[in-house]
């Protein structure tokens, strides 16, 4: 059974929500977790909730990188930072994967410092899942977007590698047998987007094992036209934040409307089911987190505002990725290319 190292000090609501999430995992699954963080704080939280001590280990450290801290400086100064200790546990074979809701930059650097890159992978990719329209019954409600921030600019080879990594991850974790891969671009034509995107387009088109469906525009991101969307980090990060922002505004507007007048209140009441579904769909707690791909080990980065449920789901995602041998499949895919 997989063993997951969990950064107890990472995230806006850490350690409280992270520890509660691990406590829930200990009661509902057979996953072994090692909480990395301040032992006393962790135990004080555990004492207040039901948990199974047999499935929870604690690795003590008092240092951690805050959400606002410069990750490079933070990790240079804090050699026993919780995310780094968690990654080392995995690198030394004491755990199989890491889950963190902490500083994204620190998570990526911790991977770079502690994990070996998969042979042939030039740059790691930070993936994220986001809700999208489904086109057929049973289709996964979430699509995978990568890279969303591990890189700034990428060349064509790196984009092809992202496609291979994302495809392998989607095949196992999202249970899409033959994931459709698309390039995020400013137009659907193969000649759009400049030399790098054009080259990436042609290489992906001829890449065996990749179900490449061409370019997609920003407007199609949420329409379910592809299961894996590949782009460079800067673009991916902006796209993801726009999606999150729009979803928050819609839910917020619905709430405001409810307070405005009795007619709107009535309308809100009638639409409550749909709004609830929208909220569920955009609730990052449901999907838990997304992986940092390209290393020999799995690290799942969950949302900074993760609550206990999000942490629980992130741990389950990490365990699934380990069980299904996602990194091994990525390595095989990269080797073929």
């Amino acid at each position: 059974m997989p063993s997951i190292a969990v950064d107890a000090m990472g995230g806006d609501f850490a350690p409280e929500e992270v520890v509660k999430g691990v406590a829930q995992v200990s009661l509902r699954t057979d996953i072994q977790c090692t909480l990395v963080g301040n032992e006393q704080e962790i135990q004080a939280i555990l004492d207040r909730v039901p948990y199974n001590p047999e499935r929870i280990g604690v690795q003590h450290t008092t240092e951690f990188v805050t959400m606002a801290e410069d990750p490079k400086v933070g990790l240079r100064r804090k050699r026993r930072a919780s995310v780094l200790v968690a990654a080392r546990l995995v690198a030394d074979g004491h755990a199989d994967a890491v889950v963190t809701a902490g500083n994204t930059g620190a998570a990526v650097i911790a991977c770079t410092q502690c994990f070996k890159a998969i042979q042939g992978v030039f740059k790691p990719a930070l993936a994220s899942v986001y809700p999208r329209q489904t086109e057929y019954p049973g289709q996964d409600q979430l699509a995978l977007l990568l890279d969303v921030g591990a890189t700034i600019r990428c060349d064509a080879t790196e984009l092809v590698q992202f496609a291979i990594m994302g495809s392998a991850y989607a095949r196992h974790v999202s249970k899409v047998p033959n994931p459709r891969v698309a390039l995020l671009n400013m137009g659907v034509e193969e000649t759009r987007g400049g030399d790098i995107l054009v080259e990436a387009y042609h290489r992906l088109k001829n890449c065996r094992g990749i179900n490449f469906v061409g370019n997609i525009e920003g407007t199609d991101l949420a329409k379910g036209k592809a299961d894996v969307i590949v782009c460079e980090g800067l673009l991916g990060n902006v796209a993801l934040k726009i999606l999150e922002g729009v979803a928050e505004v819609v839910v917020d507007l619905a709430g405001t409307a409810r307070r405005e007048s009795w007619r709107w209140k009535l309308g809100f009441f009638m639409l409550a089911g749909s709004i609830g579904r929208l909220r569920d769909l955009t609730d990052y707690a449901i999907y838990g987190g997304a992986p940092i791909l390209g290393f020999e080990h799995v690290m799942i980065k969950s949302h900074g505002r993760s609550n206990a449920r999000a942490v629980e789901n992130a741990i389950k995602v990490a365990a699934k990725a380990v069980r299904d041998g996602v990194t091994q499949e990525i390595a095989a895919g990269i080797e073929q290319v």
Partner: protein
Amino acid sequence: MTFWQRLGRVSKTQSPIVFRWDLDKTYLQTDFDSLRGLVRVPFEKPQDKVAVPGVVPLIRGLRDAATEAGREVQIYFISASPAQLAKAIKQKLALDGIEYDGIVFKDQLGHLVRGHFRSLREHVGFKLTELLKSRRTVPAASREILFGDDWESDPIIYSLYADILAGRIDGEELGEVLRVIGVHPGLIAEAKELAAGAEHGDAVTRIYINLERRTPPTRFRSFGPRLVPTFNYLQTAVCLFADGYLALPAVAGVAESLIEDAGYTPSALVNSMADLVRRGHVPEAPSLAVRDFLTPRGLMPAERRRGLVAAVWHRVVRWVRQAGAPASPPIDAIDYHHLVTQWRALGGGR
């Protein structure tokens, strides 16, 4: 108090020792949380009854350790199950090879006949009076260790019993607390009379509560440091070893039983023991002794290898943390009125 001081204390006091065990959910894995289980219990054969993992080697180990130390030892069981189940339960104990000195069941039929319907579900009065009656039969200087679970009111019953023996609760207060709980007036009068006749002394050294329902440990804080909530019998065994009541081979026996009978892994056992240390019920030294004993036997995984400097530093940090850890506070008088209200509001063990 350090581990070595504890050992010293125990070795000096060779007073007789009494271990009192609740049956359901403490010794036996009785399923009365489902209607199906409830219906099945009366028809279960002795061989169908299942002991809680680790409890059998633990009880045997406690008797052996006391006998080896030349100490008089007595083991009692107390159960709120009806006397009609006595035969099957006694046969089960015989099958497990458990020797005991007394066992008490509740006269549920009698309550039914007398129309004491509330007494059918209320066990505090029954258990407390039975404990006090039994106390009269053991040597006056006997020390006691009590074992219960988080399903009903064992923490309250055992704490009341311990404080009555220690003279921390008078008859008036006892009567008031039992009235709040809803004990039958006849049993309240009996309990007060028995309490008045009890010889005073801090006889109960520990109360172990098996967290079968995974009740959060913090809910037991108001019961004081005498009560130790444990998630499995390895945790209980390690505590008993630290207090000098159990030998290391017996702790290993409990660990073996958990692995063989309940599918525990060596890392699950390490995690359990670390949890106990973090919760402050056991100092680091005895837990290290347990680990050193269990690791070569394959019952716990080997510690992570550290470099020499890291290993020395780790030991120093542990030593400093242990030295700085506050000693167990003395047992203060428990505010039972507050505690009973709080406990009931949380739905008993939940």
